């Protein structure tokens, strides 16, 4: 293995570029984090919102600057969930159909909350989130075909766009050690 000068310089330049990219992405996502906090706290203050949805919201509010472990765990668990999606639709519904418990206005705010949490996750860990989405596209498409063949009708869940968020939330509940809650001092 031999590296010439240009390769070493390119390697160092690549490292510097990745660090700078992360810094700029994190800074650019700050307004979205604030809106995420607004909408999340609004839903948390509403007594009609079910407890499991509130737990999901707390997880994503707490992981606004992190979430790497959760994304990696989701990446690993997606094949299992694709299998569940294909062959055990009732169990899948208990995992992914939480949004149905919300009323009209709260459902819209929750949809926006999911969209913002995806943007924030993208800013925090763009490569891992891309892997999650690619894995979902590759594995859930055949799972959907299998499910369609079994049922005889195409059954796309209403909240298919939020599949990664639902999985992350469910996996967070399954983890034996919950992710640490960040404490800020100022």
């Amino acid at each position, binding site marked *: *293995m031999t590296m010439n000068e240009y390769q*070493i310089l390119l390697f160092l330049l690549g490292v*510097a570029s990745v660090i700078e990219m992360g*810094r700029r992405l994190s800074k650019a996502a*700050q307004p979205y984090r*604030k809106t995420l*906090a607004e*909408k999340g706290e609004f839903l948390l203050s509403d007594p009609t919102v079910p407890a499991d949805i509130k737990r999901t919201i707390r997880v994503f509010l707490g992981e606004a*600057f992190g979430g790497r472990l959760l994304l990696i765990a989701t990446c690993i668990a997606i094949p299992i969930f694709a299998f569940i999606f294909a062959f055990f639709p009732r169990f899948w519904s208990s995992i992914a159909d939480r949004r149905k418990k919300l009323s009209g206005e709260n459902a819209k705010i929750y949809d926006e909350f999911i969209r913002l949490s995806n943007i924030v996750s993208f800013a925090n860990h763009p490569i891992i989130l891309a892997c999650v989405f690619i894995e979902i596209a590759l594995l859930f498409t055949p799972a959907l075909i299998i499910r369609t063949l079994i049922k005889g009708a195409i059954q796309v869940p209403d909240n298919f766009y939020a599949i990664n968020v639902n999985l992350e939330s469910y996996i967070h509940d399954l983890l034996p050690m919950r992710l640490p809650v*960040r404490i800020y001092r100022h």
Partner: protein
Amino acid sequence: MGDALGDNQSGLHLKTGKLEVTASDGLIGSFLDFLSYIWFGTIDRMIGHPVFGVSALCLLFLIVDRIYRARREKYALEIEYRKWRETAIIQKSLPFKEIDDNIKE
């Protein structure tokens, strides 16, 4: 002056002017070989090629500077986010339109 690490090890090979990595037993050995290759190889070339040396030093400085700046900014953003959440908890509901306007700006 001979090779600093011997003929059959990674790192400086001043006789041939080439840098080699030899396979060691085990994962840790290979990793140490790789590190020594990067470290001694870079120093060797910095001595031999001043332009490369200066460029590499500048890039290393840039990396350290970016890491330091990223950490400092992230800490500031986290504090700002925390304060924003506390404000939202106190006020319970703020006009979303105002926040959306901030994003558009």
